[in-house]
């Protein structure tokens, strides 16, 4: 009896003892459904980097990172379910890779005080940290992207777009409609004629839209697409023999799988990118420490692809923010609130990126209490069908903050007013 009691007491003691510390990073991924082709490489890159940090560096500041994957299927309701199911695990940051899910999570993360990072998507005016305490969208947002595209076209045309016709082909959703206001403002400034054409989800059939483009003969077509819409648009553009070099997708319409189904016909298609692509030194480490040990998040075939690199970049930024938070608070066991402090003090320099094995993966930028949006810079890349790879055409292009800053201010202040939010950072 005494032995049994002793065993029971020992078991209870072990169970009640301090749990192994860990830093939790939920991954709201989508590896199934119509948008899986984009969600899978992003999630692979995101998870592989955390595995690398655990295996190579022993974790972040000596504390292991734990990734909890939850499948959303790019479905907003499922995304919210995933958030609710994982937030109690000690989640430090959420990256839902969906503008629809982002809009639903903004009030929730604000109430639960967990940072939300929507890198190059989501609510653009969340760049204003005075209003959106828990939401970050560095290094760039949709309005930056629209501005970068117009800046590029302006440079291509000697600074004069006044006699040009530009068409925006967009996914008929909150995501697709995001750049319209910016492009209208930029049209006023540069004098180009803007036409907008919507494509309904999923975008499998776009004959009407491309017949309209063929009739109206715009000089340039910009595309805000995602999923099958991208592949069909590239094929339809080729079908009507629209000059591919005048067709520019945003950074969610510029992955390898967006162009490969059209084969050689996609040659010359351009897109924006918020992260550079290419053979980064960190990929060797990922192979050695993660893939060779059988710990890859996927089958390993996506390493180096545009969206794998972007997912990995998202993880790099999360890890660096966590390290910054650890330094600020002097403890390796950070909370979500501390993580936010780390994100607000994040600084990405060329030297830091070089040291991390990701030289030039993104622009240099720093985050502050008021500025959650980063530098907003992006590059333009072009598809080389023969070589089967994207080629960077430009260095990082600065967005037109003269136009964008007032739009961010206006939209975020309207949100603050509607939700009775007191401004921070004053």
């Amino acid at each position, binding site marked *: 009896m005494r032995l049994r009691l002793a065993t029971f007491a020992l078991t209870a003691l072990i169970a009640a003892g301090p749990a192994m510390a860990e830093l939790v990073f939920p991954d709201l991924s989508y590896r199934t459904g*119509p948008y*899986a*082709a984009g969600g899978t490489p992003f999630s692979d890159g995101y998870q592989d980097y955390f595995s690398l940090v655990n295996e190579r560096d022993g974790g972040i500041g000596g504390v292991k990172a734990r990734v909890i994957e939850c499948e959303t299927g790019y479905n907003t309701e499922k995304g919210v379910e995933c958030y609710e199911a994982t937030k109690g695990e000690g989640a430090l940051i959420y990256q839902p890779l969906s503008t629809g899910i982002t809009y639903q999570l903004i009030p929730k993360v604000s109430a639960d005080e967990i940072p939300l990072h929507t890198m190059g998507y989501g609510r653009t005016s969340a760049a204003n940290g005075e209003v959106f305490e828990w939401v970050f969208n560095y290094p760039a947002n949709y309005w930056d992207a629209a501005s970068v595209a117009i800046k590029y076209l302006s440079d291509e045309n000697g600074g004069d777009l006044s006699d040009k016709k530009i068409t925006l082909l967009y996914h*008929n959703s909150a995501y697709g409609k995001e750049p319209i206001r910016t492009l209208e403002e930029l049209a006023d400034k540069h004098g180009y004629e803007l036409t907008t054409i919507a494509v309904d989800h999923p975008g*499998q059939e776009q*004959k009407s839209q491309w*017949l309209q483009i063929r009739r109206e003969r715009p000089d340039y077509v910009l595309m805000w697409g995602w999923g*099958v819409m991208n592949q069909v648009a590239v094929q339809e553009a*080729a079908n009507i023999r629209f000059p591919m070099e005048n067709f520019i997708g945003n950074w969610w319409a510029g992955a390898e799988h967006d162009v490969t189904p059209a084969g050689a016909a996609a040659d010359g298609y351009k897109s924006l990118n918020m992260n550079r692509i290419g053979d980064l030194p960190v990929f060797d480490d990922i192979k050695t420490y993660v893939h060779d040990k*059988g710990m890859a998040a996927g089958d390993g075939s996506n390493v180096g692809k545009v969206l794998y690199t972007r997912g990995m970049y998202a993880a790099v930024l999360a890890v660096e923010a966590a390290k910054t938070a650890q330094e600020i608070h002097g403890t390796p066991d950070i909370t979500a609130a501390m993580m936010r402090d780390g994100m607000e003090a994040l600084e990405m320099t060329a030297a830091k990126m070089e040291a991390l094995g990701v030289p030039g993966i993104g622009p240099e930028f720093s985050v502050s209490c008021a500025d959650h949006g980063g530098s907003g810079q992006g590059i333009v890349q072009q598809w080389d069908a023969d070589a089967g790879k994207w080629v960077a055409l430009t260095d990082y292009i600065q967005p037109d903050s003269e136009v964008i800053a007032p739009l961010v201010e206006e939209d975020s202040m309207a949100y603050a007013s509607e939700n009775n939010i007191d401004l921070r950072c004053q």
Partner: protein
Amino acid sequence: MPDQLLYGIEVMINGLMAGVLYALVALGFVLIFKASGIFNYAQGVLALFAALTLVGLQQGQVPFAHLINAIFGTEIHHFGWELPAIVAIVLTMGVMVLLAIVIEKFILKHLVNQEPIILFMATIGLAYFLEGFGDIMWGSDIKTLDVGLPQGGSIWIEEKTAALGGDGFYGFFIDRLDIVAALVAALLVISLTLFSQFSKQGRALRAVADDHQAALSVGISLRFIWVLVWSIAGFVALVAGIMWGAKSGVQFSLSLIALKALPVLMLGGFTSIPGAIVGGLIIGVGEKLFEFTIGPMVGGATENWFAYVLALVFLVFRPQGLFGEKIIERV
């Protein structure tokens, strides 16, 4: 002729072509509903599964490679050979027949005499199962489908028709893939009609469609007919998968093409093969012309919902659809 009128004609022609593609999907629904009274929710997924299998076989992809690698730690992906398109199509057809046998043996056989809603629910389950099964079998990445189909507008037609209008008219645009799809659809309908009218199995199929009980009483095997009709629906799904997959690559949103078939079925009737074709053409032309004329005034992207509105308007006047059988139930 005014350019705007010419462009209207161009939109109408392209609407007809798009309608043929919708009809190709709708045909599979009609075949199964006619023979077994089942509204096959899985028809779109069948098209996806067929296209995935075709590309996988053609490119020599090892089925279930991810699963095998995960379990055994291997790194196999491809056999190292590629099959000619025609061989891959024939083999895929074999897989679809096998699938029809499995569906009959494990699902339909156990649901004989059940309510239609039960059978419908079973096909919903089948759709989700096949979607996941296809994912595990062939992977979720987007695959390029190349069976030698032509792509792009016909330059010959453009040049020959450009003179019809003024400087603002660039000739009629007609996608060569759509022309091929129209020819294939016509061939398919003729073949199906000849098969059902003049072959023994076709007559048996029609007998089952007319009256299950009577067909059984004269010795027709219901199970064989179900396998036959699901095999034919699988073949139709393969054709639809090829045509749609050639446009977008083979990917999981292919299964959503079923959404385009629903208004076609509502309009054309669930039991008529000509109805599927005519319904497809009406929906195709209707939605494209609406988008061309009214779309710009209401912000565009009208096609998805307008197809259903058009079908609903028809339903008000002919609940059984244009060519569907009128069902009269006496109390």
